[in-house]
């Protein structure tokens, strides 16, 4: 019988999260972010957090909610636009920010989960990202040494999950979630649909349940769209 990872909801899932911890949060922009866990972190009033996340949300959604309450001490991200409160805290020195190339961020999380302490990448060579980092040439091309990232808790969002913690993501909401699931000492998955073990096709699972310690069915997803871009509908007659 599979090991059950099910907890009752976001409150039970976030048990043990404390001030000063390092957290990973999946998502790209507002796509595929763990909405319910973020709401619970706001409610818990934990602060002095180091948050590893590709982006920092917008003013009133995503990680912006934690920034509003000054719960974050340091952000490790690749891109942090679209957030006025973030800018204010960064410029005033209240918030520490470590910007790293997106591919290096993804690979550092993957490495952290895969037991690889560091790796060489060409990204950032010759730029300020390379400052203080070891440089080594492979096949005549310079690379910089980047270290793995891990977290006390990783929060990920999936489309479907089963009681064993196996996860399936939808479309581009996958993004950083699979690597962060691997890199959390405790990984909390929130899902839109929670199904019994044996329901998901084992051929089609994206994140194996071994990487997930707690899973719960999220409620009330807002799934906000950052840039709504559409083509107008035209009927055949006026096309």
């Amino acid at each position, binding site marked *: 019988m599979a090991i059950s990872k099910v907890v009752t909801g976001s409150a039970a899932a976030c048990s043990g999260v404390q001030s000063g911890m390092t957290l990973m949060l999946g998502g*790209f*922009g*507002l*796509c*595929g972010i763990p909405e319910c866990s973020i709401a619970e972190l706001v409610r818990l009033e934990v602060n002095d957090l180091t948050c590893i996340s*590709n982006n920092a949300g917008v003013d009133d959604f995503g990680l912006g909610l934690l920034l509003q309450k000054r719960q974050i001490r340091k952000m490790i*991200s*690749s*891109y*942090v*636009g679209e957030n006025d409160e973030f*800018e204010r805290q*960064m*410029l005033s020195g209240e918030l520490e*920010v470590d*910007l790293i*190339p*997106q*591919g*290096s*961020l*993804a*690979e550092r*999380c*993957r490495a952290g989960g895969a037991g690889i302490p560091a790796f060489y*990448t*060409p*990204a*950032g*060579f*010759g*730029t*300020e*990202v390379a400052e203080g980092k070891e440089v080594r040439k492979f096949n005549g091309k310079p690379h910089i040494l980047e270290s793995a990232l891990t977290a006390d808790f990783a929060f990920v969002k999936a*489309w479907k999950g089963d009681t064993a913690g196996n996860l399936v*993501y*939808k*479309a*581009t*909401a*996958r*993004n*950083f*979630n*699979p*690597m962060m699931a691997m890199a959390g000492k405790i990984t909390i998955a929130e899902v839109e649909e929670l199904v019994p073990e044996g329901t998901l096709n084992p051929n089609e699972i*994206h994140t194996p349940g071994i990487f997930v310690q707690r899973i719960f069915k999220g409620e009330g997803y807002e*799934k*906000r*769209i*950052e*840039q*709504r*871009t*559409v*083509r*107008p*509908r035209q009927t055949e007659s006026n096309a």
Partner: protein
Amino acid sequence: MLDKNGIAKRIAQEVRNGWYVNLGIGIPTLVANYIPDGMEVEFQSENGILGMGPFPLEGDEDADLINAGKQTITAMPGAVYFDSATSFAMIRGQHVQLTVLGAMEVAQNGDIANWKIPGKMVKGMGGAMDLVASAENIIVAMMHTNRAGQSKLLEACSLPLTGVGCVKRVVTNLAVLDIREGAFHLVERAPGVTVEEIVAATAGTLVVPDDVPEMQIS
């Protein structure tokens, strides 16, 4: 002189059948609109899709389906979704044949600066550093001069670098230029633009051949 769509049209002529292409935010995104019908090309967006399609019809937008600019998009038949580590494996591993991106400055040695202006809000480099460090074929799409009228094609970049010695070709509103042997080489003039105007708008070393054809843009 070309507008942004003209620059995109000219860059679309560089795309070859069977290529996987990554388009950056801004002018590069427009390149997708000018790929000839029937050409087999797939667009990669580094947040995790290969086979990106046009914007959705009104009412069909899906919060779970966006591009790297966080815009709602669609997926073409044969599309695939993947995680960020796999996405950058495609980029770093040189499985993507062409990268098109914008720039604030390009230097005659191929250096590019496009992510940070000291003293202004720093938003981050996103995937740009990974893209320029690994892509074999990088085309920069940009205006020839900045809003203050200063050349963006320089002897050396003044802004913090995104990557070193990586840009091979630049397409601007005035010209197509190649970068090799530490200099810009004028390849084509935009319609109605003279060689003298291009020389005047280029701060870096510019090599001008005897014959500089005008771009052929429909």
